[in-house]
C-alpha cells in the first residue's frame, strides 16, 4: 500500500447539490472514482484541478495547491485533465492539439515522447486532420494523448474511454498501466466500467450524493464481503504472486501465490520469475466438496470457508474462502450454499473457471 501523498478536502455547493469530501489518495497508481450519475465525480475532479472554486485544501506531494488562504492557478498546477467532453481545440489540427500542452512544458521535464504517445493511441494517420472530422473515439484518443504529453504529476481522467470499443480499450489500457507504473504518475480515473476499474485501479473511492461512502486500496476493499461497493457482476479479488513455469505447448503459465498455484493463459510480456497480479471474480469461483479432475475446470484449490454473507440479491450468497493466506470470493445461489451445508471452517475445493492476468 502506498502512503497518502495527495490530501484533498473540498466543500462546494450547487442548488440541490453539496459536495463534501475529505480524501487521502496514494501518490502512485490509479484511483478509481466510482458512483452514480450526478454524484459529484466531475465536480470533484474540477475542484482538484482548480477549475471549480470551492473552499477546501489540496496538497499534492507536499505542494500546497490550495489552502484556506492560497489558490494556485490552474495553469501552474502540474496536472493534466482529460475532460468528459473532449474539448479539442477546433482551430488546431490534431498534431497542433497534441503539442499545445507539450510545448508549454520545459523540455527537460518532458517524460513522454510525442511519437510514443501517437503510437500508443493510434493517431499516426490522423495528425493532419481537423478535430471536426474525427469520429467520437478518435476525439477521445486525441484528448488522452494531449493530456499525457504534458507529463503531469497528476492525471485526472473523466471517463476517458467511454467512447471506445473493447478493442481500442485493450490497446490503450496497457499504456495507462505503463504511465502508472513506469512514470509513477498518479491517476484519478472516473469510470463506469467495473472491468476497467478492476483491471486498472489500485485504490477505489466510492461516492454518493457528493459524499465519499467508501475508499481504500483495491485488494483490501474487494476482499471484504460486507462492503457497500456494489460491483455486482464484478465482485472479486486480486491476488499477487509470481510466474513459475511456462507450458509453451498449451500456451499456459503457472502462477504461484501464497496458498497454491493456478494456470493462466500465457502472456508474452511475462517471463518465469516475474511478479504478476491476477483477478478472480466471485462469479467464476464455484465450490465443490470433493476434488473433480474429469472436467474442464482445471484450477482447483483446497480452501477453508471463512465467512458467508447474503449477496446483492436474496437468492445469492457470497462466500469468502481462504486458500492459505489468500482470500477468494465465490458467488453461488443460496440454495447451493444450503445444499452443500457450507459453514465457516469447513474444508472444500474451489474451482476457478477463469483467471485474468491484471498486469
Amino acid at each position: 500500500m502506498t502512503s497518502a501523498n495527495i490530501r484533498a478536502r473540498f466543500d462546494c455547493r450547487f442548488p440541490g447539490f453539496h459536495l463534501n469530501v475529505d480524501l487521502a489518495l496514494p501518490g502512485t497508481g490509479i484511483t478509481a472514482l466510482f458512483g452514480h450519475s450526478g454524484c459529484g465525480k466531475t465536480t470533484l475532479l474540477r475542484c482538484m484541478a482548480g477549475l471549480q472554486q470551492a473552499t477546501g485544501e489540496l496538497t499534492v506531494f507536499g505542494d500546497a495547491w490550495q489552502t484556506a488562504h492560497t489558490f494556485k492557478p490552474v495553469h501552474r498546477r502540474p496536472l493534466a485533465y482529460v475532460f468528459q467532453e473532449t474539448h479539442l481545440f477546433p482551430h488546431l489540427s490534431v498534431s497542433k492539439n497534441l503539442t499545445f500542452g507539450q510545448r508549454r512544458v520545459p523540455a527537460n521535464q518532458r517524460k513522454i515522447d510525442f511519437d510514443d504517445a501517437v503510437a500508443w493511441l493510434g493517431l499516426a494517420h490522423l495528425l493532419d486532420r481537423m478535430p471536426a472530422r474525427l469520429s467520437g473515439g478518435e476525439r477521445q484518443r486525441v484528448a488522452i494523448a494531449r493530456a499525457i504529453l504534458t507529463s503531469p504529476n497528476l492525471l485526472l481522467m473523466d471517463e476517458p474511454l467511454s467512447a471506445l470499443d473493447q478493442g481500442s480499450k485493450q490497446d490503450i489500457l496497457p499504456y495507462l498501466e505503463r504511465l502508472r507504473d513506469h512514470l509513477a504518475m498518479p491517476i484519478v480515473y472516473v469510470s463506469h466500467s467495473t472491468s476497467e476499474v478492476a483491471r486498472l485501479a489500485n485504490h477505489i473511492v466510492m461516492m454518493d450524493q457528493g459524499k465519499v461512502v467508501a475508499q481504500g486500496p483495491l485488494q483490501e476493499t474487494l476482499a471484504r464481503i460486507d462492503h457497500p461497493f456494489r460491483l455486482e457482476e464484478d465482485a472479486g479479488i486480486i491476488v499477487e504472486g509470481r510466474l513459475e513455469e511456462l507450458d509453451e505447448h498449451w500456451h499456459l503459465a503457472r502462477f504461484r501465490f501464497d496458498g497454491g498455484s493456478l494456470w493462466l493463459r500465457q502472456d508474452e510480456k511475462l517471463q518465469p520469475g516475474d511478479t504478476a497480479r491476477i483477478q478472480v471474480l466471485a462469479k467464476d469461483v464455484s465450490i465443490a466438496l470433493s476434488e473433480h479432475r474429469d472436467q474442464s475446470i482445471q484450477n482447483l484449490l483446497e480452501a477453508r470457508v471463512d465467512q458467508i454473507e447474503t449477496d446483492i440479491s436474496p437468492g445469492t450468497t457470497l462466500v469468502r474462502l481462504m486458500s492459505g493466506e489468500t482470500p477468494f470470493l465465490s458467488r453461488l445461489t443460496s440454495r447451493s450454499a444450503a445444499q452443500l451445508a457450507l459453514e465457516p471452517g469447513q474444508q472444500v475445493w474451489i474451482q476457478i473457471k477463469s483467471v485474468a492476468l491484471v498486469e
Partner: protein
Amino acid sequence: METYWEPVWLTLKLALLTTSVLLVVGTPVAWWLARSRHWARQPIAAIVALPLVLPPTVLGFYLLLLLGPNGWVGQFTQSLGLGLLPFTFEGLVVASVIYSLPFTVQPLHNAFDAIGEGFLETAATLRAGPWDRFFFVVLPLARNGFITASVLTFAHTIGEFGVILMIGGNIPGETKVLSVAIYDHVESLEYTQAHWLSAGMVAFSFVVLVTLYTLNGRARAGAFR
C-alpha cells in the same frame, strides 16, 4: 494645389492607424465586457455604444469643445506639452477612435461571448496562463469577430466625414482625407472628379473586402464542419 494622392494616402494612414489603435484598445474592453460579472458592465457597454447615437458633426462639435483650448482635455494635453489636438492628424486619429469604438467593441464582445468556457479551462490544464490562453485560444477562436471588427472600423473610418471635417478642419496634407476631398468636389459642383474618386474608393474597398473574406472563408472551411 494638393495632388489626388495626398488625400488617398492620408485616408489610408488614418484608417489603418485608427483600426490598429482600436483593435488594441477595444480588445481588452470587449474581453472585460464579455467575461466580467461587475455591476458596471452594462452601463459601460452602453457608453461604448453611445458615440453612434450622436450625429457625427455634432459629436465632432463636442469633441472640438473638449479638445480645444478651453476644453479640459485640451488643457490637459497642453499642460503635457502636447499642444492641441484639433486640426492635426493626431487629433483626427483620436476623434476616429472615439467615433468608431462601437464598431470594434461590439463584434469582439459577441465573438468573445461565444467562446465556450471549456476551451479556456482545457488550455489552463495544458499549462497556458491567462495571456497565453488569450493569444492562442481566444484570438484564433474569435477570428471572425476580429475580421468583422476590422472591416467595420476600417470602412467606417474611410467613410467617416462629419467628425473629421469638424476636428480636422480640411487642411490639405494634414487632415484633408478622401471623404472630405470628395465632399469638396461635390460641393463645388465638380461632379466628374467626385465620381472618379468615389468609384476608385468603392472599387478599392471592394477588392480589399473580397480578398479578406475569401482568405478567411478558405481558412475556415478547413477548421469547422
